[in-house]
């Protein structure tokens, strides 16, 4: 029985992080993916902040859904409630980190406010509800999704660093090149669907 649970969770993690990669196959969190991927260091910072917030947000949102919204039959309010919870959570995390874990705050600080508008956070919380995950599964799924986000953004940042001085046609400079690179990455990641 326990083995089975562990096996299921590992499968869930694999699926959430690689097979259904949040950026490249579900298109969530594209704004930071395209915006904050100029170099690997900031990409790692953003990834770290995302892992932290998405895991926490999935946990809190699934608790609220299970113990407040579902029993009161208010599930149609989930969008409003979740976005407010996430916005508050981000502020709260920022304050806590600033006060108690200064080194982590210095590393992640600037990225935290940006995360409220990262649709991956809300997307994962809503998907967890749609897929009927429990609290443990939601948290694991959130964590794995964020790992997938980090993997994708760090790879893209690495590629962008390498391509910075390449000679490319003028109209493709900037965003089009980044989009083409992401497209190629999406093809590569679609190879993971064979794992299913």
């Amino acid at each position: 029985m326990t083995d089975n649970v562990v096996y299921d969770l590992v499968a869930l993690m694999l699926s959430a992080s690689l097979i259904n990669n949040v950026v490249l196959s579900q298109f969530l969190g594209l704004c930071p993916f395209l915006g904050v991927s100029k170099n690997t260091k900031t990409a790692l910072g953003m990834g770290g902040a995302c892992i932290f917030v998405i895991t926490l947000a999935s946990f809190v949102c699934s608790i609220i859904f299970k113990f407040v919204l579902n029993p009161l039959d208010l599930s149609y309010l989930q969008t409003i409630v979740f976005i407010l919870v996430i916005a508050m959570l981000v502020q709260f995390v920022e304050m806590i980190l600033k006060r108690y874990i200064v080194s982590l705050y210095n590393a992640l600080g600037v990225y935290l406010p940006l995360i409220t508008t990262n649709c991956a956070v809300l997307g994962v919380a809503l998907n967890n509800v749609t897929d009927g995950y429990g609290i443990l599964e939601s948290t694991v799924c959130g964590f794995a999704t964020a790992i997938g986000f980090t993997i994708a953004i760090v790879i893209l940042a690495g590629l962008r660093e390498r391509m910075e001085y390449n000679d490319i046609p003028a109209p493709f400079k900037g965003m089009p090149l980044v989009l083409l690179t992401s497209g190629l990455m999406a093809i590569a990641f679609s190879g993971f669907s064979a794992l299913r």
Partner: protein
Amino acid sequence: MRREAKKGALGLRQNTPAERFFNGLITENPTLVLMIGMCPTLAVTSSAINGLGMGLATTFVLALSNAVIAMLRRVIPSTVRIPSFIVVIASFVTLAQLLMQAYVPTINKALGVYIPLIVVNCIIFGRAEAYASKHGMIPSFFDGIGMGIGFTCAITVIGLFRELIGAGTAFDIQILGEGTIFGGTVGAYLSLYQPISIFVQQAGAFFVLAFLIAAMNNIKLKVQKKKGDEET
């Protein structure tokens, strides 16, 4: 010169409904010029119908939330404006979601989680913050309509490209490939087309958008070069 500066989009007088409309549609097109709201742009454009549905839902939310925020702009204290805006936007998104569930269930199902995710679409929050919180209700409403229609046009075009190249259809009508609606010689040629299915998959979204933006950049560069030539 001073009079020039006061003119808005297309030389129309600023903050009139028409000026706002064309500003959103052309001058400051959210997708192709400002490049905001990328997630839905890429996610739901696997077909033109989906793009259109998403665009209209966004327009609905954008116009109404802009109007309400403009109406409340003197009541909301600026320190809590962000949560207040979020509540207004989220309410309209929920309304849009319920309406779509009731009247267009197939599109609602195809768009899935991206309908509630309109809440975090940067276009809506961006317009609330940049325009509606500083202007009156009527121009804000038309600003929302213009931005929304601009967004709708852009994502419908992307959807159309992807659908046509990837599946040979446009708005679910078979144009290219086997079973084309055209008869005769033209139809015989069109039916030879082999759909490139990668374009309806995720990677295709990135490619089509990349080429659209590159095409726009190309036009911009040519215009700039022409201007430079004229000056020298």
